[in-house]
């Protein structure tokens, strides 16, 4: 942890939060496709993609300095925020599979970060 600047962690934290908002907007926009495929051009999806692009800028700035074993799993924190937003906004349930799957994925991403220099 010592080799990773706090500013990098903050940048990645912001990236993960923006990414999770992007995911929520993508879901909000995606349900409009029930009206037909060409409803894919809608404001919510546009905003979602915009948030993803903004998030990726923070991500790129964040991983310039510091240890990937710390920073990569922090990006995946976005999955955890998304779990909460999905419950709040879309009433998706917490299930044991979701928690277990997510925990394993975070662990796996940590190892990938550990192996990447």
């Amino acid at each position, binding site marked *: 942890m010592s080799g990773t600047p706090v500013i990098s962690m903050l940048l990645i934290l912001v990236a993960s939060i923006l990414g999770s908002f992007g995911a929520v907007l*993508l879901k909000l926009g*995606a349900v409009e496709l029930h009206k037909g495929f060409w409803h894919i051009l809608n404001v919510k999806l546009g905003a979602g993609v915009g948030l993803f692009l903004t998030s990726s800028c923070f991500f790129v700035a964040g991983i310039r300095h510091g240890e990937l074993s710390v920073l990569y799993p922090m990006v*995946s924190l976005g999955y955890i925020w*998304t779990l909460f937003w999905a419950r709040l906004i879309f009433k*998706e349930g917490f299930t044991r599979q979701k928690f277990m*799957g*997510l925990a394993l994925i975070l662990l*796996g991403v940590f*190892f990938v970060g550990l*192996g990447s220099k």
Partner: protein
Amino acid sequence: MNTAASNPAREPDTAARRPVLLVFGCTILGAAAQILMKWGANHLAHAGLIDTVIAVATNLPLMSGYVLYGLSTVLLVLALKDGELSLLYPVIALTYVWVTVLSLVFFHDKANPFKLAGITIIVIGVSVLGRGGKK
């Protein structure tokens, strides 16, 4: 509590799995996009702003990468149309798996125990999630 095994699915298995398969496709396209963009970026010289814009726009691998990214986003949206966000979004972590494997092949990145353990655990995590779907 309510596992798929104890509670037989009402709809055909393939219909329930469709969003997961779509995100699966999304991660493969996303990984291919990242590899193409890396490949394209490796051949990009440092130059002034205008020259860089022209160099990016005429860089076939880079542009193909952007197109694949666009397609992968479409697949994600199609998956989210019917699937649960909290279930599908973490599946995107599979991108790490494909990018790691493809980088070994195309950029001769070195494999190491950490990376191999990591991608194995991600695959297990995704398969646990893939079973958690109830729609």
